[in-house]
């Protein structure tokens, strides 16, 4: 009945319209397409349905899409190419404003059924044709879920960048700024030998990122610049990659296959793959920072997911790009690349998300040789009188260059994430541990060529984060790092085992401006205290003692 009433209106409506079908189960087009004018060469014959309330078997038509049931919705303009299952009726001009009941009364029931069947077939054909045209013209795949908010990804779903959960094809610009104030107990109004400032109490722009990314059905790219004042004003590149993808029909799931070339994250563990925009703690754990001075490196990366299975493998230069502004230049000195990868799982039974994996890294380290030196004369003030006396000039002959040497380094890690969603928000428990050899590249730089023995390193952390009704977050992290598990210390002429472990306890609390409150903008203000327990100081006996080096950081982050 409803169809009978609306079909005449639909067919007599203005040309240049299309049908939008929203189906939660079936894949939908990437976005509501722009109506495209289509001029029908001729209008089909229109015969409205009988006005009676009687329902005949032939009238039990399939459910009508809602868009068609809306009198104000666009209507389909038939075209000659529309496939029909029955012979096309003879064209009959439509008279705007004419009363359809008059024609209905005059039509025979068989004719009406026949014409109705023909029209339904025609409409179905037009819909199919229209959908095919849209897919072909715009390149949109039916595999992308759109038309609603971003898929509700659990916070542990990381590692696929902005390509995951994408809502529309095309190029997007995004960015964020992290401005912070930090106070450290290590701060002094002095400079170190070489000019390094010892003061750490200051305001800084920790990160100021602008990201241009693009997504298409089978391609994606990422380009991100960073401007900061961490070690002085600096602008550098932080992401630059091109990807080829075979996407999962569900955009909330990672692609089946994603091959990325360029500057991209090193796939090791969980923390390394979390975007620094989304990381609530100020920095990665100490061990992670020591192993990977920066999260990104240049190389080739293959990642994806199939069901609960996740894989992320990469061949990289092996010299991570330090993401701290003004860091020393890092150019890979070895021909051999580093191999890194993580295989894991991620499941989401209802309001719980669980993920985890194991990671491996195998690479080549570099012991830098020395340049040849020229001979020189050195004054050695043997009697310490500050005057040049006979016998105090010493010849220091030149030295031939020494060769550079390579060494092996490796790491094995395991990580586990548990997230539970409640009325208050997501609760996250993050666990990760890594055992490595000769991998420290920043804190206690490993060089077995110099020490004569491999250095064993151990790193682990446990973190908990709790969202509080969208507007706040609290959390804490315990971080452990031992840069040399075989360290010996010489005390009173004897070597004794020494503990080089550094323990960091980092509680945080923050206020959040969630997405949607201010269109296109969100932000947060987070305060984190780092209580550090180590053995970097010496007490009055000369015995290693805990150095007073706690710090507190207040960071304001704005995102667009």
């Amino acid at each position, binding site marked *: 009945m409803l169809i009978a009433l609306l079909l005449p209106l639909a067919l007599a409506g203005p040309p240049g319209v299309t049908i939008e079908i929203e189906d939660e189960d079936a894949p939908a087009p990437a976005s509501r397409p722009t109506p495209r004018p289509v001029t029908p060469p001729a209008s089909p014959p229109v015969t409205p349905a009988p006005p009676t309330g009687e329902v005949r078997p032939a009238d039990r038509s399939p459910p009508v899409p809602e868009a068609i049931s809306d009198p104000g919705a666009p209507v389909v303009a038939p075209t000659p190419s529309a496939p029909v299952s029955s012979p096309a009726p003879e064209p009959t001009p439509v008279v705007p404003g004419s009363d359809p009941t008059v024609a209905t009364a005059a039509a025979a029931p068989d004719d009406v059924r026949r014409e109705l069947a023909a029209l339904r077939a025609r409409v179905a054909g037009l819909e199919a044709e229209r959908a095919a045209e849209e897919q072909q013209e715009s390149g949109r795949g039916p595999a992308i879920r759109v038309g609603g908010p971003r898929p509700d990804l659990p916070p542990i779903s990381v590692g696929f960048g902005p390509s995951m959960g994408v809502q529309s094809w095309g190029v997007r610009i995004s960015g964020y700024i992290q401005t912070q104030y930090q106070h450290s107990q*290590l701060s002094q109004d002095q400079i170190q030998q070489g000019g390094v400032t010892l003061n750490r109490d200051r305001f800084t722009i920790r990160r100021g990122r602008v990201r241009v990314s693009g997504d298409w059905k089978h391609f994606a790219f990422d380009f991100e610049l960073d401007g900061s004042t961490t070690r002085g004003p600096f602008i550098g590149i932080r992401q630059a990659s091109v990807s080829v993808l075979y996407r999962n029909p569900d955009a909330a799931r990672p692609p089946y296959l994603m091959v990325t070339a360029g500057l991209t994250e090193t796939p090791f563990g969980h923390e390394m793959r979390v975007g620094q925009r989304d990381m609530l703690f100020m920095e990665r754990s100490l061990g992670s920072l020591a192993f990977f001075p920066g999260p990104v490196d240049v190389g080739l990366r293959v990642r994806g997911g199939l069901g609960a299975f996740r894989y992320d493998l990469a061949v990289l230069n092996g010299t991570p790009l330090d993401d701290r502004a003004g860091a020393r230049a890092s150019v890979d000195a070895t021909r051999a690349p580093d191999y890194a990868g993580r295989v894991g799982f991620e499941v989401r039974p209802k309001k719980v998300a669980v993920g985890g994996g194991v990671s491996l890294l195998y690479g080549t380290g570099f012991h830098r040789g020395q340049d040849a030196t020229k001979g020189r004369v050195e004054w050695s003030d043997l009697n*310490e009188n500050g005057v040049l006396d006979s016998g105090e000039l010493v010849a220091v002959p030149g030295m031939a260059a020494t060769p550079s040497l390579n060494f092996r380094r490796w790491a094995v890690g395991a990580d586990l994430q548990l997230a539970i969603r409640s009325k208050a928000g997501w609760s996250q428990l993050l666990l990760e541990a890594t055992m490595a050899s000769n991998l420290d590249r920043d804190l206690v730089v490993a060089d077995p060529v110099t020490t004569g023995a491999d250095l064993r390193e151990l790193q682990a952390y446990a973190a908990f984060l709790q969202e509080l009704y969208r507007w706040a977050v609290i959390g804490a992290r315990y971080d452990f790092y031992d840069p040399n598990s075989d360290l010996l210390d010489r*005390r*009173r*002429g*004897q070597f004794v085992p020494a503990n080089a472990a550094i323990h960091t306890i980092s509680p945080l609390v923050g206020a959040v401006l969630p997405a949607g409150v201010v269109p296109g903008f969100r932000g947060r203000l987070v305060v984190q205290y780092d209580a550090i327990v180590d053995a970097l100081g010496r007490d*009055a*006996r*000369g015995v290693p003692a805990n150095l007073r080096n706690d710090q507190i950081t207040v960071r304001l982050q704005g995102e667009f």
Partner: protein
Amino acid sequence: MKRAAILAFAACTGEVDQQVGLFEPIRVPDGEFIEDEIPDGGASEVTSIEAASGILVTGQQQRLLAGRTSEDAHAIAIRFAGLGSGWWVRPVQDLDPVFPGERDFQLRYDVGTGVPAARHTLELAAVDGEGRRGPTFELDVCVQDDAVPDNLNACDPTIKPPAVVVVLAWDRDVDLDLVVETPDGGRIAHKTPSGGAEDPEDPGVGRLVRDSNSGCVLDGRNSEAVVWQDEPAEGTYLVYADLFDACGEPGALLSVAVHRRVDNGDGTWDLAETARTTGAVTDLQASGGAGPPLYVTSVELP
């Protein structure tokens, strides 16, 4: 209760400060600075000290101090008596094979630039396993300031200091030269350190004692001096500062001080500052010695 727990936790951690100790009159580069007083009452003691010389120069580096302690010592502590704010400590070493029951120690220290030129006492103490220091071992030393040559008069007032010393000092790492024009037209500068005198060894002839930061090779002194061991010829001496090379700096603040010998009448002497003039030079004045120097002051001598 919570507060007490936090305080107890903080106390148990036994945290120590990282101290660079640049303000301290003595620095042990590979030692630890303990800002507080080390509790005494320990039984460990220093048994012997070996030092090359008792004369120290401000800013001097890597002075060696070696010796022995009793066997129960864990560390050696050192400081200037009456100066500074704490002790420097460094672990002791093996048992000495020659002196049974004693341990060796060896430390190298720097002398701070702020130490006044005078006689001082270095205090050393052995620290036992419980962090207590034993009896203090005292070592007398003389600290001299080579920016103002005084012939060690600061340590021994009976030594006669120079008759006149003109000192140019500046704050930035630039190659600044002191130039003094004598009444007879002589020019004491880095090219003519004795002003072209016929007898440079004459004690009445002024001598330039240093060309600081020459060619922008920094020496950390940033000062030059002209010294007259005996009273110079009478007349007006013109003092200039010549910026040879700014070494990349925008300029420098400078001062010229005149020191004169004073006879105390009791067989002792002093070297007293009698005049001081300050000024500034900018990098635009750097001429490589080709341009006219900056006039600073004049001195009537004797």
